[in-house]
């Protein structure tokens, strides 16, 4: 099936990597001057790391959203696709989003771990890591959410290559992580960073690697409350929120601990909807409700970032 337009794309279905990449190209083609595709690097297996950029002007600060760094969390990549379409649909129609886009660029990486995602579609639906071999081990891959340079190697990550939470041989050893690190550093003006996972219904802020509260904890907590309230207003989905270490567990080398330490105050990570029956095999009919409710929380975070420049 050839995708002729992003109107033809079935947002209520799961899609392969090729289909998502076709969607990305189509969205860019349909929205010249507004949407562009940036390739921030290549995965271990050589796949492009595609980031959609939504921009209405030059030299804007940026808001970053990534989905699906853990490959088996399919509802996150599917939600990311829906977000992309939502942004182009609502720009100039929704006053709040338009105001955000008149001041900030939005960067959206829909498939953060393409090798892993491809692997879940072809070989092992339950794969969550990258696909880089580990020297001296028959086990493949690194947990890309333990590979960042924030408390790297500390408690809450494994040093064993066969573990699902293997941190890797060194911080940023995974090209999928390093590409984002390089992009964030070179951009220099990312003001909010939201990394989206599934599942267990949580909105979390730093830190994961230490019990020491981050200096903006009070503000991040209140914003999390506001975002979760907005999310729940649609389908009454109940979320927990708080710091990673206090809400779930100690985790070192995590994405948003690094982004926060880089000076990105509004650093959050989501765990999307959990029906309590399917885990990572959330039925496709849950994609749109999940994306819709998450979008409300994302809007709350982006609006707060816009209204509270730093």
């Amino acid at each position, binding site marked *: 099936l050839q995708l002729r337009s992003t109107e033809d794309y079935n947002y209520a279905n799961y899609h392969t990597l090729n289909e998502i990449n076709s969607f990305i190209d189509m969205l860019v083609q349909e929205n010249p001057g507004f949407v562009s595709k940036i390739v921030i690097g290549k995965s271990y297996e050589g796949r492009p790391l595609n980031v959609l950029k939504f921009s209405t002007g030059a030299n804007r600060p940026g808001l970053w959203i990534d989905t699906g760094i853990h490959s088996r969390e399919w509802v996150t990549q599917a939600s990311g696709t829906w977000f992309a379409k939502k942004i182009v649909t609502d720009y100039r129609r929704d006053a709040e989003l338009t105001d955000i886009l008149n001041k900030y660029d939005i960067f959206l990486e829909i498939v953060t771990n393409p090798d892993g995602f491809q692997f879940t579609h072809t070989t092992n639906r*339950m794969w969550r890591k990258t696909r880089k071999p580990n020297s001296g081990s028959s086990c493949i891959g690194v947990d890309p959410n333990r590979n960042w340079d924030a408390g790297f190697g500390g408690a809450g990550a494994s040093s064993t290559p066969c573990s699902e939470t293997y941190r890797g041989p060194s911080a940023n050893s995974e090209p999928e992580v390093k590409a984002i690190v390089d992009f964030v550093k070179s951009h220099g003006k990312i003001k909010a960073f939201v990394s989206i996972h599934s599942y267990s219904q949580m909105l979390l802020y730093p830190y994961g690697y230490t019990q020491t509260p981050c200096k903006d904890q009070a503000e991040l907590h209140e914003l999390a409350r506001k975002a979760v309230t907005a999310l729940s207003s649609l389908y009454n989905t109940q979320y927990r929120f708080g710091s990673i270490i206090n809400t779930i567990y100690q985790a070192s080398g995590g994405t948003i601990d690094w982004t926060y330490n880089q000076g990105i105050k509004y650093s959050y990570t989501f765990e999307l909807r959990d029906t309590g029956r399917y885990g990572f095999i959330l039925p496709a009919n849950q994609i749109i409700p999940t994306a819709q409710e998450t979008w409300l929380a994302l809007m709350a975070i982006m609006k707060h970032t816009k209204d509270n420049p730093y």
Partner: protein
Amino acid sequence: KETFEGHQVLRITALNEAQINLLKELSENEHLGLDFWMDPVDVSLPVDVRVPFNSLQDVRAFLGYHEIHYEIMIQDLQDLINEEQREILQSKA
């Protein structure tokens, strides 16, 4: 292609810290091949674990012996994956 015939996903509800610690011990038994979808952390959070068919008896016996409550969240993971695949193909058609 790796398949998951007979794998079950159990949703375990720990009642106290002692049971959480027992589940942590269980997670360290590498030979069981368990895949914790949600780790044992706190009694306020459920623990979801994918159990390969060959380890089901051991895990259930462990949970039963320690009187740790669980429900079967997914009866056969491969059935659900097959259903997901059917839905994807149907939708494309």
